[in-house]
């Protein structure tokens, strides 16, 4: 077997040194009745060529977003990843390293984590960010938990424009911890009046910008209202590219920002792995979940980086840790860091403008169609339309024509009365022809 270097001669000489008659003898602590003969109903080993063929078989049964017009968003976005990103993250020194426990031989990882933290802080307008969480949804769950730790309160208010997956993760956690979650209903037309829901028990209000239906809003007033009641404002960002176009969460007064970093550098990959972003104010640093990398010096006084403040973490604090997270999403954070480094201010600005322009162009063309109503008044690269037919059947029809035509709201929010609502995103990858093909196909599908 190509990955297993021991030869039979090795095994014999090693057993001789150990003083064991056989490899099986090394398993003598296993109760006899549980020692399996290895005769599983599974295939035998295969060469690389065969394995690749099998995997191509799976791939061939799918319709990849790179090969067709794609207008899906709802928490994952179809952006172009520069090829240097993908080359660099595959370098073995990055790919096959562990969490940087030995800083003297992990300065590569540590420096990029420090850079990642800085980028996330700059993008969100916050003071500090951590080294990343599993994904946006779990990051949201951690944000609510942190708000409850800080405020020592047990209630959270969730906007109806929060991504349903995020809401559900928060609710799952709350169910087991016995905390209280007030989730506003999802409605693409009316944002609910969250102000009225903040009281002295409220640990935090969670809003998403842009919201699940695409709306962009300035939540500065809401932040002030939260602070007045001693509550925190948690702001969620599922489309990180929007941070290049919108007033930052920090400027709006958010206390914790949690979000999804996939848009920078990470392939769609059917939903994961992605990387959760997590940023907050300086004063809350010691309440943060996840790893943190800090600057220091070595014995020769040379600048370097280490994991720090680990007394917050499970391996030191055990059941009192701020989170149970251990392995997070290092390589995706690296991809994010490289992509953002490539963009820089000018590239980010241009990228955001391109996304917005694509979405506005799409919206304008759709508004002109019979049977289509635009529900999102102001938006970045994503918006919701109401159709004259059920959205899920329309989407299936479009798929049949080789178009990935949006996410039916009902898929994430069944029973919310949104069966005719379709959530659409347009990014820099959508060409004018893609848009035209989609619009004309949609017109046909609605006819």
């Amino acid at each position, binding site marked *: 077997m190509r990955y*297993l270097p021991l030869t039979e001669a090795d*095994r014999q000489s090693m057993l001789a*040194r150990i003083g064991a008659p056989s*490899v099986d003898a*090394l398993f003598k*602590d296993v*109760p006899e009745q549980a020692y*399996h003969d290895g005769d599983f109903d599974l*295939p035998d*080993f*295969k060469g690389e060529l065969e394995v*690749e063929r099998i*995997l191509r078989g799976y791939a061939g*049964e*799918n319709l990849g977003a790179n090969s067709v017009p794609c207008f*899906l968003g709802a928490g*994952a976005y179809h952006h172009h990843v*520069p090829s*240097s990103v993908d080359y660099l993250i595959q370098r073995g020194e990055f790919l*096959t390293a*562990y969490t940087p426990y030995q800083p*003297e*031989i*992990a300065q590569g990882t540590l420096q*990029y984590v*420090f850079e990642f933290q800085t980028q996330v802080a700059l993008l969100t307008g916050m003071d500090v960010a951590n080294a990343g969480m*599993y994904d*946006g949804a*779990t990051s949201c769950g951690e944000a609510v938990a942190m708000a409850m730790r800080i405020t020592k309160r047990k209630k959270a208010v969730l906007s109806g424009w929060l991504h349903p997956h995020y809401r559900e*993760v928060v609710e*799952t956690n709350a169910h*087991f911890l016995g905390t209280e979650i007030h989730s506003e209903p999802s409605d693409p037309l009316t944002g609910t009046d969250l102000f009225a829901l903040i009281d002295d028990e409220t640990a935090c209000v969670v809003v998403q910008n842009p919201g699940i239906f695409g709306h*962009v809003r300035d939540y500065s007033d809401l932040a002030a209202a939260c602070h007045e009641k001693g509550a925190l404002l948690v702001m969620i960002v599922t489309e990180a590219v929007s*941070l*290049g176009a919108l007033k930052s969460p920090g400027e709006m007064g958010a206390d914790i920002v949690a979000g*999804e970093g996939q848009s920078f550098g990470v392939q769609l990959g*059917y*939903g*994961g*792995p992605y990387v959760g972003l997590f940023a907050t104010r300086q004063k809350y640093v010691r309440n943060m979940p996840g*790893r*943190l990398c800090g*600057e220091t010096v070595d014995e020769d006084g*040379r600048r*370097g980086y*280490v994991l*720090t403040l680990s007394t917050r973490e499970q391996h030191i604090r055990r*059941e009192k840790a701020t*989170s*149970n*997270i251990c*392995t997070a999403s290092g390589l995706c954070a690296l991809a994010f860091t*490289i992509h953002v480094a490539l963009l820089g201010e000018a590239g*980010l600005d241009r990228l955001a403008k391109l996304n917005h*322009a694509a979405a506005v*162009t799409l919206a304008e063309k759709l508004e002109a169609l019979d049977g289509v109503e635009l529900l999102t008044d*102001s938006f970045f690269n994503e918006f919701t339309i109401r159709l004259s037919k059920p959205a899920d059947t329309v989407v299936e029809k479009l*798929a049949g024509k080789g178009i990935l035509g949006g*996410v039916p709201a009902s898929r994430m929010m*069944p029973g919310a009365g949104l069966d005719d609502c379709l959530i659409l995103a347009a990014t820099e990858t959508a060409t004018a022809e893609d848009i035209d093909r989609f619009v004309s196909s949609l017109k046909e599908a609605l006819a």
Partner: protein
Amino acid sequence: MTKDTYTGHRGLMLEEPLLFEQGQEGRTGVDLPEPAAVKSRLGACARGRSVALPGLSEPQVVRHFTRLSQRNYGIDSGFFPLGSCTMKHNPRINEKVVRLAGLGDLHPMQPESTVQGALRLIDDLADWLMKLTGMPAVAMSPAAGAHGELCGLMAIRSKLDSDGQQHRMRMLVPESAHGTNPASAAACGFTVDPIPANKRGRVDLEAFRAKLGDDVAGMMLTNPNTCGLFENDIIELAAMIHDAGGYFYCDGANFNAIVGRVRPGDLGVDCMHINLHKTFSTPHGGGGPGSGPTVLSDALSDFAPLPYVVKDGDHYRLVEHPGDADEKPFGRMKGFHGQMGMFVRAIAYMLSHGRDGLRQVSGDAVLNANYILASLKDVMTAPFGGPCMHEALFDDHFLKDTGISTLDFAKAMIDEGFHPMTMYFPLVVHGAMLMEPTETESREALDEFIGSMRFLAEKAKAGDVDRFKNAPQLTPWRRLDETGAARKPVLRWTPPGPDQQAAE
């Protein structure tokens, strides 16, 4: 010998400032077309201020990260016996297939009809995992081991609640357990009750029995345990916890030791996470991503998280909402459907090995660890006898009176060209050194390592304290000041203040 250079570079070891110290306005590493002129729909929300990202060109960025990578040590560099972490070879075919068109570029919310291959892959991987563990169900969405722990505990909690056992709040966790175990228990609302180890490095049966009671929800046992030992009483322990009305969570981080030979389902386990990034070789990536599918027993199989894949005849579907489920899912833990990229890599790894290869994996992993144990136990101290499973545990007894600590010893190993073993874990032995070679190391590599460890042990005993206290000396960075870093944390770059700028 000339030591100083003008640049600070030293031959092939090249200095590299932070990205933020290299920016210039207007410079960028991507070219994007001119956006169409449209009427903005950003409303009142348009950004007014600069984000202040530095501008670098593509060549600069490539060089930056190339240089950073050159300061790292990975499995591709050399021997990486980090106990409990299973740092095995990461095959490149896995990196290739995960990027295939039709896998890498699937949006998670595509209509089911366009992702049948993806769903089939998830279902096939689930089948491998169920067969290898002898368990009837598996939750695929957990993002890593700790997340899988949470998943299993939530399933236990849900089952207890559904049986009217709301009062069972106490979770028994050995002192040797990984930190994520108690942390996950707490994240699920349990109280943690520690159980001690016996002299043989296993759960103390009597102490365990004494902890049982009506409020016990279950136990979290790692097997093989974090001392690298198989819990020989495991079947008895499982029976005891079941008799007491609790459930058995097994931490499967060490599954690599037994894959293809022992099925946790045969040991009485009720749930167990599997770190695909350990046993099934998806790369650790400097701290993730991972994936922690969690197998469930009959008792718990109804209580899985959403979403999951169901096969209807030839068609695969995703159950995403409680209303669509025949079972009693406890809810969602994560966005979308799990770490698909890790699933693709893991199934490629499994197909490559097959049934027979996986059995060889555990055999060679255990053989390699025992070889290290047998070759070092005369010069280092092994607190528990052999045979061990996939990792060899030593304590710092052999360093007694040398003034050298486990940490010092580890740093000297860095000079020798190795990544150190896991240190100070598990907590049940003093100054622990936990060495996990994995099956993908050759005998030649082990012999070199063993020779080097014997050399270091000798030097330590001979009083060559300097070699350890001042280690590492041959790395681009010497020991870093961790205390200073924590005392006054600097967690990000900030632009130089006006004073500093003026001084430049």
